């Protein structure tokens, strides 16, 4: 049982689509919200939306952002700097969302490292991947 909440933060419809796609793979995912930045939305308004998605209380929250340096990430990083219960990751991809969704237990250093590893391991170019794996 996962003890932390997940929020996917990103541009446009990507967060909602990433959530829906992860559910195709894992089945229904509880305690996960998607917050997409709309084209006309101000960073301040998006910050409100993201804070609402993160929720109040003391539970730890993992915010998976689509793009390092984009507004969703910048807003999430600012929230994370002010609140030690929020962990913010940029460059989220489907393997990372699935890994986080199916994680067991707490949002600790070990899990954060694993998420980063899984995200990187899922990025390959077919010929190089093949050369490395096929002897």
């Amino acid at each position: 049982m996962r003890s932390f909440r997940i929020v996917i933060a990103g541009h446009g419809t990507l967060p909602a689509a990433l959530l829906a796609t992860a559910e195709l793979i894992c089945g229904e995912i509880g305690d996960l919200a998607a917050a997409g930045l709309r084209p006309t939305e101000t960073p301040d308004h998006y910050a409100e939306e993201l804070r609402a998605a993160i929720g109040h209380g003391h539970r730890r929250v993992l915010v998976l952002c689509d793009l390092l340096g984009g507004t969703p990430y910048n807003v999430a990083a600012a929230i994370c700097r002010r609140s030690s219960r929020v962990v913010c990751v940029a460059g989220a991809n489907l393997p990372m969302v699935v890994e986080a969704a199916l994680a067991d237990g707490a949002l600790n250093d070990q899990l954060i490292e694993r998420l980063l590893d899984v995200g990187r391991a899922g990025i390959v170019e077919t010929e190089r991947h093949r050369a490395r794996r096929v002897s």
Partner: protein
Amino acid sequence: MSLRLVRIDDRLIHGQVVASWLRAIGAQRIVIVDDATARDEFLREVLTLAAPEGVPVEVHDVASGAARCSELARTPEPVIVLARSPRTMLALRQAGVPIEIVDVGGMGAGPGRRRLHKTISVSPEEIRELRELEQLGTRVEIQIVADDRPISFRSLDSGN
């Protein structure tokens, strides 16, 4: 009995198998039984590379697959067995592979196929083959991902 998951899935190895089932079962090995794939070196390689590193993929035709599955069923190693069709699964069962439950995880739609449940569609012939599996004492269940509640084929099979 270590054939932890014996699954009919026309996509063989894909996201649901890799992300949901491998983890849920802690499987260390995937055994694919499929005559066409066993003959095709390119397909074999694509499937081998689709599994995570450290999870070996074996591809067998029905004859060698039956022997291999029976052998693995006697070891404690957790294994996932995948076949594309009820026909292959029936052949394995008839060859004596001990299969307690067949999981129907992926059978796509198409002409001449009717929807059985959610994304699972079947042809009349496949319905007959699934019924035959049940007659041989194998339970047929639909469970697309590990977190889903399994649904018995019998409860969905209207009898036509």
